[in-house]
């Protein structure tokens, strides 16, 4: 079944050709294709010298898990456990997801009128035992990922310096940042499409060219 799918979101949501969600997604066909291309660029990368595949999958698994997006969290946890040295890492990441659970967005604004909206919350750090196994470099990446997921407005130059100091290059930091930010996007696309799938069907508004396409497709899930 999954072998027929060349699109991850279609695969994990079991979106079939001509279904209602397929018609909705294909209404923005270029976006649909490039959302998949970004996934391929991140997880079947042309260059793994700066961020290894194992590191990418570990961070992705952590980020999807922190979001509580079960379907994507399963996908990345599975991909990680299939990788060489993945199973041990996957178990460690599961523990860190537990430790990192909270609710966002929170964080601090520049001093001024917005200070009234400052919202405190945990600053996650990898525990000492896990750090020994994960290493300082991957631990720094997980700590930064948690910052980006839950308190993006706390992001700082110092946070990037911590990544540099842990041994990540400039280009690696760009890739890691894109990976976490892409996951934040992907999780929400899946959340949104899942809600659309659960909501009962609604006749699509007239005078839209898409109306005809939806009718032609049977307008079914």
């Amino acid at each position, binding site marked *: 079944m999954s072998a027929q799918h060349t699109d991850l979101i279609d695969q994990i949501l079991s979106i079939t050709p001509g279904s209602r969600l397929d018609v909705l997604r294909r209404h*923005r066909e270029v976006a649909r294709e490039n959302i998949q291309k970004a996934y391929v660029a991140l997880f079947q990368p042309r260059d793994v010298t700066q961020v290894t595949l194992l590191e990418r999958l570990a961070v992705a698994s952590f980020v999807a898990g922190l979001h509580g997006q079960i379907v994507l969290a399963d996908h990345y946890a599975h991909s990680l456990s299939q990788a060489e040295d993945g199973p041990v890492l996957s178990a460690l990441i599961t523990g860190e997801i537990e430790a990192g659970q909270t609710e966002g967005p929170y964080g601090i604004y520049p001093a001024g009128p917005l200070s009234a909206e400052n919202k405190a919350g945990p600053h996650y750090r990898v525990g000492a035992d896990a750090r020994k196994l994960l290493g300082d470099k991957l631990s720094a990446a997980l700590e930064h990922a948690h910052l980006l997921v839950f308190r993006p407005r706390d992001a700082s130059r110092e946070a990037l310096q911590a990544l540099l100091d842990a041994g990540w290059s400039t280009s690696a930091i760009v890739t890691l940042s894109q990976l976490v930010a892409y996951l934040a996007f992907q999780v929400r696309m899946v959340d949104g499409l899942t809600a*659309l799938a659960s909501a009962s069907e609604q006749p699509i508004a007239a005078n839209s060219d898409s109306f005809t396409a939806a009718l032609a497709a049977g307008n079914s899930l």
Partner: protein
Amino acid sequence: MTKTISYPDSTPPAVFTQDELGWAPWLQPLTEAELTERHWAGLVDASRSKSDYFMLLAHDPEVLEARTNADKDIFYNPNGGLPRAERELSATATSRHNGCIFCASVHSRFASTHSKRRDDVQRLLDDGVDTDLGERWNAVKQAAVALSDTPGQFGVAEIAELRAAGLDDFEITDVISTSAFFNWANRLMLSLGEPVPAKAA
């Protein structure tokens, strides 16, 4: 050891604004001399080589290329779906909720331009995401906020609100894509550099 770039003489803006802002990177962007064909492809439009933001993201050209092409289709595709003004409203509400002053400045200006509702847009920036913008805009704004919360709070209740406000499912899909996309954009803009006063013309 590589060091981040700092701007000790710059005072970052401390309020949300529709004024034009600049953005300065904390890491070294590529220079034009370093660009290969792969990087030019990643930039999509050659003019983006003038932007520090895109030249920094060009360190990973394949991801940048896909992201740029998705961005353009989600926001600029004129074929049906959500009117441009409301795509920008969704981006603005998302940026306001996450706290990206730079992203909110750019997309609030677009929302104002396309909707001619500058005062409503300004109220969203000044008072935050609980402000009352009327039924249809409230539904879009609340959907963007629910999607942006972590863990996600977006579900059938938000879909029902959007439909009650008159949005069809193509429009709702655009609300989802535009807000989701700004959860991507906000995290890059906030974490790779800082807003700075606009450069004097």
